[in-house]
């Protein structure tokens, strides 16, 4: 290792001791990405109070409106009310703005859930492979096999086999992510178990399970958090792709991919039906990726040296 790198690490370690929160606040990528993400989460939670209507409502009289046009919409009680279509309407007369705002919910839920599911299974498999020697070979060969199949194809095929619902979409997107987490955790475990404090614990007769969860797992946290944000970003993209291709969540569910899939048909005349959800999608993924890069630089300086 290069001497300056050691200094940098010592400096970062000192900084982290002095207050992790302060270090994170000092990183502009964490602050920018985190703020945008927090704002989006707020939008998702407050969706009903942001001037939206039920995103599945449609009105034949309000089809194909341009952004900003005033039209009418019939609510579930059968009343017809005037409504301003901030982002226009689609071919069924649904309010794009409401659908985009509600779509934030689906994207964030899928992103977070996929990250958690794949981290959970990846950590379990990685700990097992790194610690139980006889399992290592078999498990890692299976993981190699899964990694050889392009992730999107696995997701598409699984969603096609099971009926698409929120749960199946989340699992289908999470499965191809598991091998990467497994590999990461396994390599971390293999290096951490050589550390003096683990050897000390072993020689003191600490039980294997306690070593795994008490000594090794906490030290894998920083890279796992970073990996988790990247998985979240990619899961949001994959969910949008599945919806866009027409194999994701049912088409009346307001997801950004579904809005774009419908907008695709009339793209030449009404490009905004593709652009508005597209901008939200790109912004969300960008914010999460920035947050991930910032976290990587602050939490895991060794990894940031590598790429």
């Amino acid at each position, binding site marked *: 290792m290069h001497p300056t790198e050691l200094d940098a690490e010592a400096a970062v370690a000192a900084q982290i001791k002095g207050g992790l929160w302060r270090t994170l606040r000092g990183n502009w990528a964490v602050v920018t990405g985190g703020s945008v993400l927090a704002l989006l989460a707020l939008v998702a939670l407050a969706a009903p109070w942001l001037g939206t209507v039920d995103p599945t409502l449609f009105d034949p009289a309000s089809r194909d409106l341009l952004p900003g046009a005033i039209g009418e919409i019939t609510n579930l009680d059968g009343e017809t009310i005037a409504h301003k279509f901030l982002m226009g309407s689609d071919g069924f007369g649904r309010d794009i703005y409401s659908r985009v705002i509600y779509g934030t919910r689906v994207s964030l839920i899928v992103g977070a859930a996929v990250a958690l599911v794949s981290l959970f299974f990846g950590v379990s498999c990685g700990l097992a492979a790194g610690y139980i020697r006889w399992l290592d070979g078999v498990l890692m060969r299976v993981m190699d*096999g899964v990694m050889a199949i392009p992730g999107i*194809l696995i997701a598409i095929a699984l969603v*096609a086999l099971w009926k698409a619902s929120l749960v199946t979409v989340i699992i289908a997107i999470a499965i191809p992510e598991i091998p990467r987490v497994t590999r990461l955790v396994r390599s971390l475990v293999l290096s951490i178990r050589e550390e003096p404090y683990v050897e000390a614990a072993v020689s003191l007769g600490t039980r294997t399970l306690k070593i795994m969860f008490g000594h090794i797992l906490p030290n894998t946290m920083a890279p796992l958090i970073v990996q988790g944000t990247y998985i979240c970003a990619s899961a949001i993209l994959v969910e949008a792709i599945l919806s866009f291709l027409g194999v994701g969540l049912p088409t009346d569910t307001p997801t950004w991919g579904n809005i774009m899939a419908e907008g695709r048909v009339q793209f*030449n005349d009404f490009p905004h039906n593709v652009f508005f959800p597209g901008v939200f*999608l790109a912004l969300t993924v960008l914010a999460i990726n920035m947050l991930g890069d910032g976290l990587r630089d602050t939490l895991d300086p060794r990894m940031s040296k590598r790429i």
Partner: protein
Amino acid sequence: MFTFLARRLAATIPVLLIVAVLVFLMLRLTPGDPAVIIAGDAANPEQVAQIRAGLGLDRSIVVQFGIWFGNLLSGNLGESYYFKMTVVELIAHRIEPTLALSLFTIVLSVLVSVPLGVLAAWRQGGWLDRALMGFSVLGFSVPVFVLGYILIYIVSLKLGWLPVQGYVRFADGFWPFIRHLILPSITLSVIYIALIARVTRAAVTETLAEDYIRTARAKGLPEARVVIHHALANAAVPIVTVIGIGIALLIGGVVVTETVYAIPGLGRLTVDAVLARDFPTIQGVILFFSFAYVLINLLVDLSYLFFDPRIRY
């Protein structure tokens, strides 16, 4: 050399085998009668009975896999009842656009990203470096289809420079063939460029800090020669590695790009097969893409011998 080849092949075969097992299990672990699922909506009861007998569904799962794998080895990927032809014929029909699009994209990406990455590493911290790092974060974040539609909107609809969508076979004219591939290749290459440029930058930065670079500069070699012959040449292994790994990204992108640009290739076939729930085709395409991915990475491994003569296995 020969032992290296043999060892790499020996490592590749288990991966291919596991891919085959996984693709086989995908259908068997799903509730429902595999024969009915494979037949899809387009087959009649006699065909279902025929499929059931052909799969050996009344026998153990190991025997079933044996039958299926035997067919696979003899080049029989089954029959698509939806498209009314064998899966192998189907793939052969649809492969040209995908191959053309992928090759265009790879060549374009490498031509753009490697020089950019080298320049960014050479003037680290400069405006190009920062612009490139910003672009690469953006490139990872803007979805392929959003980018595709932005390009269609500006270049084809507003400026009218290139055709909006579709594909023209190579045999039907060289220029129309090229013109239809320009926008899809650019769309698909952005994420790939971001990836390769980032790794090139990191790898060249590392080699530029080596002692032999200082030596080369000290003996008065022109800077271009130092950067290209000494720094880039020694950074080649990680760069070709990421080009190989990035193929997975490319395959995912092909599925989306072919849908955006209405290109009748394997990516579009995958989506059509899923929408029609045509499982022999889905299995066939997944196997095809995965095998291609594994074999390309085998070639990448072999190329280490050329790029880094120190490697002797």
